[in-house]
């Protein structure tokens, strides 16, 4: 395959990914009508991008297992996104979309970063697992926040009745 074919294929997959991301975000926003949901996506996406940009280079990936580091940070930032959204399902979607957004931005800002969407190595070793870790973190964060909100609501109700 010529270089130009590789670039065309990568860009087309990248554009498809962006379209899918925008469609899912718009549908989720119309359903939830929640600004915290979008806030969670933006915060986790931008913070994860700050980790990805200096860290993920092909040399680092080949020489060292930096992806493990990426998974754990994705989980942490997914948790933050889930905590913002306050509900389990929203947290799950928000965490996954936030981490996926960071990969889309990585494709935009990193030199020829969009090629990562075409490479199976990147896709199966980095993009999909870190998105899943982000979703797991978001789900746990949302669930914990939901539980604590329910607990504090029930406590205030008990106080009011007393």
């Amino acid at each position, binding site marked *: 395959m010529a270089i130009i074919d590789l670039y065309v294929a990568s860009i087309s997959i990248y554009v498809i990914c962006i379209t899918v991301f925008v469609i899912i975000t718009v549908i989720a926003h119309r359903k939830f009508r929640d600004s915290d949901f979008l806030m969670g996506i933006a915060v986790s996406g931008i913070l994860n991008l700050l*980790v990805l940009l200096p860290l993920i280079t092909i040399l680092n990936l080949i020489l060292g297992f930096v992806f493990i580091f990426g998974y754990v940070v994705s989980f942490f930032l997914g948790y*933050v996104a889930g905590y913002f959204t306050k509900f389990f399902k929203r947290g799950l979607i928000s965490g996954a979309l936030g981490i996926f957004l960071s990969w889309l931005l990585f494709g935009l800002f990193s030199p020829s970063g969009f090629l990562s969407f075409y490479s199976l190595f990147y896709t199966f070793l980095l993009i999909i697992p870190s998105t899943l870790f982000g979703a797991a973190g978001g789900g746990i964060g949302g669930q914990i926040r939901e539980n604590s909100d329910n607990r504090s609501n029930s406590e205030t109700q008990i106080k009011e009745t007393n």
Partner: protein
Amino acid sequence: MIYIYATDDSYLFVVPIYIACIFLFLYGIYRKYHDENLILGILISAAFYIIIDVNLFGVLHYLLSIQFIGYFIFCFICGIMAGLINEDIKRGALSGAIGMIIAMALTYPYIYFIIFVFGIYFPFQTLPSILGGAIGGALGSYIKKSYNYRKKTIIKPKSNPS
């Protein structure tokens, strides 16, 4: 940052166990304190440490002469982030310090955690990081507490005209 090189196959067993230990540690903290703000503070301070460390790694390690002060200052900032989430001063300090330890466990993984973090680098990097995180966390939670106290005293409930 320390990288584990691909020449060693034992990473297949070591890496999941190491990650599981980190998550178990976090789960243990959650089970003990049942405080979602503490966990959020830990994760946010750890994520900020990683972001700053990844982006300013070269600068921090180049300035060896001011490494103690440099690490103290940037962990102090991360600790303030953690403390602003917790209103209790002890919890703020705890979340800042634990966040720094987890971040260092990620940047120096596996056996390097013992060799470097609690060995060679202890006086130059670990001690100022934990101290900075704890003091920053305490200060952040003190700021939040005093701000909330002021808000409560300024906003008085309106008297009922009837």
